[in-house]
């Protein structure tokens, strides 16, 4: 009964909402996840293996986005990318790249913001692989790259999956950083979470509700699949 009323309610304006913000969100999350995977594997390997005194410093930098308000990260990226600044100016002159209020800028901001969500699971995965496997691979003459590729990554699949999914879901849920650095440009930087805020501001509660429901559904499905898959993997493993 409730469900029927609910579906009637949503159906009436289903055609009215613009799906572009959802697509921008998904695209941003996919690109961020892919790039972050490439960045996080060597970074997590270094942090998990190093005996350097600076290890805690590295770990702190990686974890900072967990506790810093997103607005702080957004603010500093805004300052750094601004064409009025040396770095922003350099990017504009050399690569014709404007990172403020652009999709590319959002990708970089998301990478910074979601860094711990990718690095932490992979790092703890690496640390749980017995040290002797890595050493044996070296003794057998294999490079670090080959050791990561053939020995470490195949043995930490659940951690990889956790990192990928958390990063994806976290990027979809991003708000503060995007607001600071991306603005609200339709088709480019107007992601779903911003669209919700925008609709609420214009008192379009129905549209805001639709966006919210879709995000709720997507994130629920993503997280549920992780717990299902990882639960099964762990059960089948004899450790």
């Amino acid at each position, binding site marked *: 009964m409730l469900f029927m009323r609910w579906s009637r309610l949503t159906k009436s304006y289903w055609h009215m909402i613009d799906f572009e913000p959802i697509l921008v969100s998904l695209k941003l999350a996919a690109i961020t996840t892919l790039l972050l995977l490439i960045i996080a594997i060597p970074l997590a390997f270094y942090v998990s293996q190093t005996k350097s005194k600076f290890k805690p410093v590295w770990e702190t930098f990686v974890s900072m986005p967990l506790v810093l308000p997103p607005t702080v990260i957004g603010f500093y990226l805004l300052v750094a990318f601004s064409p009025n600044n040396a770095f922003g100016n350099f990017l504009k002159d050399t690569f014709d790249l404007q990172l403020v209020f652009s999709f590319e800028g959002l990708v970089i901001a998301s990478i910074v913001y979601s860094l711990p969500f990718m690095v932490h699971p992979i790092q703890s995965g690496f640390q749980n692989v*017995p040290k002797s496997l890595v*050493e*044996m691979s*070296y*003794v*057998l*003459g294999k490079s670090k790259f080959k050791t990561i590729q053939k*020995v470490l990554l195949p043995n930490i699949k659940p951690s990889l999956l956790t990192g990928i999914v958390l990063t994806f879901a976290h990027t979809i849920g991003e708000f503060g950083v995007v607001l600071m650095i991306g603005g609200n440009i339709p088709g480019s930087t107007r992601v779903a979470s911003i669209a919700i805020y925008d609709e609420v501001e214009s008192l379009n509660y129905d549209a805001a509700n639709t966006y919210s429901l879709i995000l709720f559904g997507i994130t629920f499905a993503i997280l549920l699949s992780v717990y299902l898959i990882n639960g099964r993997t762990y059960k089948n493993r004899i450790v």
Partner: protein
Amino acid sequence: MIHLNFDITLNGGSQNFQLALNTFIKKGSFTTIYGPSGSGKTTLLRCIAGLETPQNGFIKIEDIAWFQVSKINFTPQKRGVGYVFQDYALFPNMTVRENLEYALKSNQNSKILDELIEIMELKPLTNTKPETLSGGQKQRVALARALVQKPKILLLDEPLSALDAEIKSKLQDYILKLHEKYELTTLLVTHDISEILRMSDHIIELKDGKVLKEGAPKEVFGHTEINSNFQFTGTVLDISSEDFIHFITVKIGQNNVKVVADKEEISNLKPGDTVLLSSKAFNPIIQKMN
């Protein structure tokens, strides 16, 4: 000839541990490194393999310096020793055959794999993942993998300590066979005296990171004065007395042997001691059994 002349200090928790030695190991020899836990046996092997870096000295193999303090330090990849870890370190994501294949050098012919699978009798196991193997099987795979690249030096870190006596004896045969076939210089870490006497021609006895004794097994264990042709080592299981006769039950390999002893002999023995049984006066009787 391997020339080891180095010292290394490891920071382990509350106290530091130092290993310092200057010793030669002959090419083609079977050397045992013997000593109590924490005496530096594993550290010694790890230094040779390049997994630990000494603070002073050098490691020379056939006049080539693998390590010379602050000048040369070959990576483990470049040293190419064969190494069997105590926990075997088989890659759990690969089958037995894939574990061996992984060890191949980039341009190496894979014929050696079939040869090793044959010698180590691994054929029925080639498509099995390590987690379902028994201890003895894992040990054979680890040993085969260590020899894929045809190393000159084989390092064995207590590879047999977790196995029961029967399998142990069979694996000792495998190791000796491979040692001769591939003309290896083998270093074996163990604290099993019967293993030492059976396998090795040279012993380095370590205690608290220093060489206590060094030489042929019999010199090290002080049995040179016994000129006998019939001797075994075993473990004392039980000491019992009836009137004035005393019996010692000794476990030799798979068999328990009861020996008559006098009061003086039992006075300094207790169950668990390792003893040498020898006979001088009689010639043993030999009967064919198969």
